[in-house]
């Protein structure tokens, strides 16, 4: 596993990673003072963090705390009002939207496979229409991505013919096929039946081990412990605490973090 | 897929909002229209077809605007372009006043036609409902024979044009001979009866389809539960399934009402002087096609939008919390 970011959990000093002297250039993703509101309702109140290449950040937090909103700001599926987000040193606002989204893949909670296309076609569509690849090349590449998530045999199936876990793995393959530098996961397993969660997490773990940079909203604490380089607890639009997973699990600095994690573990043990 | 007239509902249900005038203005205009229409009907019934407002006033207005406009156009000098523009506006006013004058003069006759349109629509839908309920119950819960008969009736009537059906009744079966004795004030001719029969028979088929779809959308567990508390099958259908199903069918009725308002115009071709035919008669007398068809369009628009608003109100009135009439289907 790669080095981990500084885990002092100090919100007021977001640039702490720079002190490591580990990364000479910019971090892959830098979020500074991110603010976002829907009408009168402020959802994100100044978020700061860096994410280095090959790192996996797991985001947890109560419902409505702004986790999805934050992810969607990163690939500009939603617009934000304040702060900056930079990818590889370049502000995302300065980039072409489509180009940004090609470089930042996303996997959804409700999966959103294209219902009228087969698993293979779901993966090739972006390759052909966005990257202008030829049909043959796109299919070769798509097949290798499907193999990577263990779904080559189901390439010709339509979404309605796949199980939830298989669908989500196609969703991951679809995002991977574009060779993204960063992958966003928004609760990729929470719509799945418990027995299907494992197969998706396994794919995600393989990706993490393979060095993919990932920003993952999930409440699967097993995954966080095993694969995350850093864990972030978000509440009411702010980072309450951030640090290596063991630290947050074993000795969180804030009571709120402790409470939330305690509740989370009881729930997942009950389930 | 419930019925083939189903797009009309969605389309018109938010017509009030869609029209640029806005909802409250629309409501006010609608209320005014209906007040006038009802008063007009009473007046006609009492024997007066005189317009309530003097058409000569608007005619005078039209000529006045026109003359002023002509004068302005002929004035030369530095202001000529401005005056030309104002003259254009004045001519527009003149045309508008002319349209209003025309409307005022012929509105009583159109109102008389509208009466028959409303009568045909309302009787058609009500009598149609009386036939449609047993038809749809037979179609959903009947044995093979009743089911087949009901299906045959529904498909045959939905598969042929309404105008052809009216022709069968009026020219083919010469149905009006049986209604000769039944003509009086409200129903001025035997042909009106034939039209009512035609709309009833036709509407029954469409309504049966709506109700069938609605009945099928009531969960089957509901009937089982009814049987479980000791109701007979018929009682279960009567007290549990129908009360829910008929609510689901309201959107269908909105379509049906709008459909009948519009298609009652086809009664014109079997000599019934309803709204469209009364307009056509005026048009052939005056050759003022544009004015008269403009008036007709406004009239039908008013009737259809009123029906939509009314059905929306009914839907809200009978809504049961948790029984999705509006959404989920």
């Amino acid at each position, binding site marked *: 596993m790669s080095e981990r970011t500084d885990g002092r959990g100090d919100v007021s000093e977001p640039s702490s990673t720079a002190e490591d002297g580990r990364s000479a250039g910019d971090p892959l993703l830098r979020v500074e003072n991110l603010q976002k509101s829907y009408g009168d309702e402020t959802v994100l109140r100044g978020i700061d963090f860096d994410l280095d290449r090959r790192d996996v950040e797991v985001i947890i937090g109560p419902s409505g705390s702004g986790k999805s909103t934050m992810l969607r700001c990163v690939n500009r599926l939603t617009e934000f009002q304040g702060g900056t987000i930079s990818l590889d040193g370049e502000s995302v606002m300065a980039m072409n939207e*489509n180009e940004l*989204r090609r470089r930042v893949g996303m996997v959804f909670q409700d999966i959103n496979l294209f219902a009228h296309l087969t698993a293979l076609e779901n993966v090739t569509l972006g390759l052909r229409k966005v990257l202008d690849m030829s049909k043959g090349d796109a299919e070769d590449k798509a097949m290798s991505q499907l193999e990577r998530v263990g779904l080559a045999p189901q390439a010709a199936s339509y979404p309605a013919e796949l199980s939830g876990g298989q669908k989500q793995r196609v969703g991951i393959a679809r995002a991977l096929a574009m060779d993204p530098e960063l992958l966003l996961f928004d609760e990729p397993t929470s719509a799945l039946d418990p027995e299907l969660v494992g197969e998706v997490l396994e794919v995600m773990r393989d990706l993490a081990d393979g060095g993919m940079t990932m920003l993952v909203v999930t409440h699967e604490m097993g995954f966080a412990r095993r694969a995350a380089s850093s864990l972030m607890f978000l509440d009411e639009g702010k980072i309450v605490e951030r640090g290596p997973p063991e630290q947050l699990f074993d000795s969180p600095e804030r009571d709120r973090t402790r409470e939330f994690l305690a509740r989370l573990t009881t729930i997942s043990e009950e389930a | 897929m419930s019925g083939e007239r189903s797009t009309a509902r969605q389309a*018109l249900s938010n*017509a009030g909002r*869609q029209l640029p005038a806005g909802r409250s203005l629309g409501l006010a205009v609608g209320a005014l229209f209906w007040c006038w229409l009802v008063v007009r009907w009473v007046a006609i019934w009492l024997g007066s077809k005189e317009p309530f407002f003097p058409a000569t006033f608007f005619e005078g207005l039209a000529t006045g605007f026109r003359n002023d406009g002509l004068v302005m156009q002929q004035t030369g000098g530095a202001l000529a372009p401005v005056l030309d523009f104002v003259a254009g506006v004045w001519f527009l006013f003149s045309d508008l006043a002319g349209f209003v004058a025309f409307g005022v003069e012929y509105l009583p006759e159109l109102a008389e036609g509208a009466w028959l349109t409303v009568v045909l629509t309302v009787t058609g839908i009500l009598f149609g409902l009386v036939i449609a309920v047993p038809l749809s119950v037979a179609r959903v819960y009947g044995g093979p024979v009743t089911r087949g008969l009901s299906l045959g009736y529904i498909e045959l009537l939905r598969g*042929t044009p309404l*105008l052809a059906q009216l*022709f*069968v009744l009026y020219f083919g079966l010469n149905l009006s001979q049986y209604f000769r004795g039944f003509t009086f004030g409200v129903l001025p001719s035997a042909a009106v009866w034939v039209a009512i029969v035609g709309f009833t028979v036709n509407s029954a088929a469409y309504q049966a389809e709506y109700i069938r779809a609605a009945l099928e959308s009531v969960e089957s567990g509901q009937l089982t539960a009814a049987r479980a508390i000791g109701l007979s099958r018929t009682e279960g259908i009567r007290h549990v399934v129908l009360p829910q199903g008929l609510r689901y069918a309201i959107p269908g009725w909105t379509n049906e009402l709008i459909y009948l308002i519009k298609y009652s115009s086809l009664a014109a071709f079997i000599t019934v002087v309803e709204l469209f035919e009364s307009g056509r008669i005026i048009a052939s007398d005056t050759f003022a096609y544009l004015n008269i068809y403009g008036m007709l*369009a406004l009239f039908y628009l008013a009737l259809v939008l009123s029906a939509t608003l009314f059905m929306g109100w009914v839907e809200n009135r009978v809504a049961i919390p948790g029984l999705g009439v509006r959404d989920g289907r």
Partner: protein
Amino acid sequence: MVLSSASPLVFDPIAAQALPLEWLPPDWQFVVRNWDYLAGGLGVTIVLTATSILLGFLAGFPMGAIEVYGSGPLKRLVSTVGVVLRAIPIVVILVFMFFVAPIPFPSGEFGMWLPGIGSFDIGLSAFAAATVGLGLRSAAYQAQIFRGALQSVSGGQMEAARSVGMSKLQAIRHVIMPQALRRSIPGFQNEFTIVLKDTSVAFAIGLAELLKRSYDLFVESTTAVLEVILFISILYFIMTFVTNRTLDYLGEYYAIPGGEG
């Protein structure tokens, strides 16, 4: 306004000899003998349905898209025009098109030929007015069908398409449209049969379609009224039936395996 060229009641001795008609009641013999005249009407009805549906599609599809993705005055205009067209009886629309519309429809006739029907003439001005009237009205309804279908494709599909880097247009073109078109098949099926049946209202402007020709016939031979109308009713029924089955088949053929349609 006499638009029918072939005159009714032409007795074709060859055709009559070819068909042994004696076993039929005389009024049905009359119907069979005038098959050619009615067949011409059938042809006009079919052609008119096709042209109206086509015009309705060409105008209605963009109208529906504007109602979903458009904004401002254009969207308001489209939806207002739609409300008006859907509120006015088709007979008023047709009569308006024929007598008032400022479109200079060409006069005269044009000949057509259809397999199984033979050749027949169509009166140009009435046909054009009917096509425009039925077509515009159908456009207003088809716009609603497409609007509903476009809106029924979940917002997540758009987001997923955008998040692999497609532009909004690409997403609409490759992801939303293919699904929306499939979902609009049932609505389209209804619309098709409505237009087919409403071609009979072109009777009002004297177009020699099926109903008008049957009217011509039974006005001539008043004993055969019922037979003539029942006969053409059967023809209409067969047409709607065949249309429905064909579109059912199309719907199944293009259905997404395992999908809800």
